[in-house]
């Protein structure tokens, strides 16, 4: 089943989950450890998240905010390699029911070799990849190769893009689209407001793919807002903060306040 069809099915089931938007969560592979990752994923599964990004640590995470920068660095310092991330992804995709997406930076793919990377991603049960520093203009070959493997490139749409550019992005996108709710890096808060609604509407004019809204989602009203205007709420920094404050207990508390009215 394609990622897009999976998301369509999930969308149908939102009523049963008493939730207005689908959820995509995030873990940095090997931070604080793969054991911690696994426990965090078990909590995420409990709350029925639909998608999980597994971030492959990179030494120059220039699109990430301070918390993820530290997480990337710590994971590398602890000796996490690309091969470990794929091995972990295979375990995760075999065990859990959510779909798994690789998130990282283009050099990880480039240095591994595009074809080898895509092959390993497919074998590990990944569905798609998000590479925030690879612009669509440079991604033609990778995207074509990915299509051969049935892997979806997830592209970002941003409030600074022109309509012409949004159309170009929409033409290349598959699976779903990651819309960036505001300027800046990961982890700062966003005021869910009219501007954002307008921006999502602008994205919607260019694509029928599900829209994920990223950057700064931390409370239930954010999820409701996203459910009203888009499809998938992206939860990144806030969940890692909860984990750092108190492991599975705090993370469960976080998801409870996030999903229950």
């Amino acid at each position, binding site marked *: 089943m394609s990622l897009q069809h999976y998301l369509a099915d999930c969308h149908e089931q939102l009523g049963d989950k008493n939730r207005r938007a689908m959820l995509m969560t995030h873990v940095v592979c090997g931070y604080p450890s793969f054991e911690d990752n696994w426990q965090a994923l078990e909590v995420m599964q409990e709350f029925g998240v639909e998608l999980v990004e597994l971030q492959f*640590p*990179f*030494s*120059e*995470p*220039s*699109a990430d*905010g*301070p918390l993820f*920068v*530290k997480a990337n*660095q710590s994971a*590398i310092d602890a000796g996490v*390699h*690309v091969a470990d991330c794929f091995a972990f992804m295979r375990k995760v995709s075999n065990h859990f029911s959510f779909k798994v997406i690789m998130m990282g*930076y*283009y*050099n*990880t793919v*480039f*240095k*591994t070799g595009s074809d080898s990377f895509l092959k390993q991603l497919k074998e590990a049960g990944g569905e798609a990849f998000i590479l*925030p*520093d*690879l*612009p*669509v*203009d*440079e991604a033609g070959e990778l995207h074509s190769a990915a299509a051969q493997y049935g892997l979806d490139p997830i*592209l*970002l*749409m*941003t*409030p*600074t*893009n*022109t309509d012409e*550019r949004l159309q170009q*992005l929409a033409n290349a996108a598959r699976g779903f689209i990651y819309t*960036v709710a505001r*300027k*800046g*890096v990961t982890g700062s808060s966003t005021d869910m407001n009219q501007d954002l609604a307008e921006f999502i509407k602008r994205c919607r004019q260019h694509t029928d793919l599900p829209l994920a809204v990223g950057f700064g989602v931390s409370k239930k009203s954010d999820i409701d807002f996203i459910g009203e205007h888009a499809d998938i709420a992206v939860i990144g920094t806030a969940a890692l903060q909860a984990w750092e404050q108190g492991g599975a207990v705090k993370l469960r508390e976080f998801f409870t306040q996030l999903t229950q009215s």
Partner: protein
Amino acid sequence: MDLFDFENGREGYYGEYGGTFLPEILHTTIEQLKTEFRKAKQDPAFWQEFVSLMQSYSGRPTPVSPLPNLSAKLGGAQIYIKREDLNHTGSHKINNVMGQGLLVKRMGKSRVIAETGAGQHGYATATMAARFGFESKIYMGAVDVARQRPNVFWMENMGSEVVPVTDGQQTLKDAINECLRDWVTNMDNTHYVLGTACGPHPFPEMVSWFQSIIGHEAREQILTAAGKLPDRIYACVGGGSNAIGIFQGFMEDTEVELIGCEAGGFGPGQGNHAARLAYKDASVGVAQGMKTYFLQNDDGNMLETHSVAAGLDYIGVNPILVNLWEKNRVRFEAVTDQEVTEALKLSMRLEGVIPALESAHGFAQAIKEATQMQPNEVILINMSGRGDKDIFTIADALDDQHWKQFISEKAAGYRGGES
């Protein structure tokens, strides 16, 4: 040859190197920058405004000086140096910075940010921001802040906020990442004054263009001073902006050999140095907005680098120079910290010039090769900056007892003042 004729290739690519690898949120910003830069580059009045600003504010043209004592001592080629150290703020960095400052005015932005390694680019940016009335923030690796305090002092006193970056290796590359993070948030009013001919297109081209003022002047000056073109030109290469700056004056002169001098640090071996091309420890990758050679591991994560010179202590290298290296137009050599210290001592004692530790890499390689050359041959070294800023590092390298005593007394005095 026009290095920037993209007619038969892809815009922003030099061979297979370069490109624009940035988060989507900066797409519009970088497109605007490309457009404004293109307009400025095609406008002869803009270049004239730039040159006249550099004359009135920075003392250009900087001279070419002969080094007769050093040449005689080595008994080989006649050595000349291009005096970028005599610029205002003490290095070639001001060329690029004032040029980008003029561009910022044209774009109507009010805030500038910059990364800095040795502090020279940050110092120059702080100067430019003060002069043009821009708000400014300088990101500098915490390790570099610790080893380049004098430059931090001047930046702060010229009104810039200096932010020590504590991520990663806490050096130049991490400061660049931090600038990108600032830029994705504040692009509406902010221009990122990238300091070297690296990063996403159009920066390599733009920085090279402003730095080409060095080469244009130098060609005319050396012809007058030496009566012929130089046989070899040496320039240190960190990011590579002073090197591409001087080399551009001699691109058509195929008989002039161009030599890029990288930081050999402790010598070959991963983590010991910052030589991307001269040693065999680097490979092609995509990071910091560009595709080029990086000192990285098999996972594509960047390696630790080392150099006595903060300004050369960088993982990547100018994509234009990589292409010229592959075409055998530029030769790359690495110079160790030890060789740099020796070259610095010779330059000070014999000629009374104090090259920056960065520039001293060019001196060291030239000194090595000069002895093998004939007295009718000519060497030109780009003295990209002055060494005053390095007084703490140089004093340590020379183990200068008087200096140590002075610092101890000064520190004791401050401690006394606090109590």
